[in-house]
């Protein structure tokens, strides 16, 4: 596809054009629960400026947004709320796990914390870090754009036994496992 075509028009598949439009008009829903929110704000503000990627317009209604940014620790009391927010979003929709707490639970391996939001909703992009640097977030955003352009969406949840639905780097290393390793 070239905009400099000598004939003055170009041809493409309709889905490619749609996906191209979608990836540069990301309407995000920031589900901000914890300290990662500060880093999210600095990414969104003018210095790093997510608007360069067409993602500068957060919607605070899930019904008007197509990317769910889960920013910060999700605990078991909050989990049903997150699920219902996700369920209210219209297709096509994508989910970004922002920060290591949303990816795996992070160092909160305890009674209250969800051990990765991919146990509840399917996650497309994992941005680990505590908190991730804005450059890291922008990298994740561009990877999400690639995914949108290809028309891909994650549909699988994390299964700890089958070890599916989560990158190998983020497979959970639990305290229980750690203690077993020390004892053996």
């Amino acid at each position, binding site marked *: 596809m070239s905009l400099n075509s000598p004939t003055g028009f170009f041809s493409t598949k309709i889905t490619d054009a749609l996906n191209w439009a979608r990836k540069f008009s990301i309407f995000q829903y920031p589900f901000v629960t914890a300290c990662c929110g500060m880093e999210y704000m600095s990414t969104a503000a003018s210095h790093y400026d997510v608007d360069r990627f067409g993602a500068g317009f957060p919607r605070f209604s899930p019904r008007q947004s197509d990317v769910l940014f889960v920013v910060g620790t999700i605990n*078991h*009391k909050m*989990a*049903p709320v997150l*699920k219902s927010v996700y369920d209210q979003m219209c297709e096509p929709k994508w989910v970004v796990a922002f920060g290591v707490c949303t990816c795996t639970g992070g160092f909160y*391996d*305890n*009674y*209250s914390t*969800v*051990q990765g939001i991919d*146990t*509840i909703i399917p996650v497309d992009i994992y941005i680990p870090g505590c908190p991730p640097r804005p450059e890291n977030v922008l990298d994740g955003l561009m990877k999400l754009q690639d995914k949108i352009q290809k028309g891909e969406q994650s549909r699988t949840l994390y299964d*700890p036994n089958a070890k599916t639905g989560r990158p190998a780097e983020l497979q959970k290393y*639990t*305290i*229980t496992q750690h203690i077993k390793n020390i004892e053996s």
Partner: protein
Amino acid sequence: MTPLEKVQEKFGKDIVETHAFRGDETAVIRPASLLAVAKFLKDTPELDFNYLMDLTAVDYLFFAGGRIQKEFRFEVVCHFYSIKHNHRLRLKVQVDDREAPDGRKHPEVDSLTSLWASADWYEREVWDMYGIRFKGHPNLKRILMYEEFVGHALRKDYPFDKRQPLIGPQN
């Protein structure tokens, strides 16, 4: 005369032990005398402890890796402060875990809500996390965890890898 000395003078027989370090004073008292001591702290003009700064608990099960055995399991710790006199006092109440003669299952101490309104949420948190009941509390229900949660998460015998999710995979 420091606040601790005043309390010792009045409630000598109810005090198990005292401790003071660089002006931070602590009195360990028997649970039956908690309400009387607290009322004395609040209503005596020279003491005037009008501010309950903190109320929490300690679980001494497996204390020091099980090397130290205490005859009681829990300790409820209250921090008092007087805005007028700028002095502080810490009260520790020993709470036994053994089943009471009336058959109740949870350890119980008197509630301080009748004296300090701020005790309300502190005591709900202690109930939520340690399972200590407060007699006379107007609304003793969980404050942080959800109602479906079984057990009390900060008790030392609560398994650290036990999960009780509302949705999502069970362990």
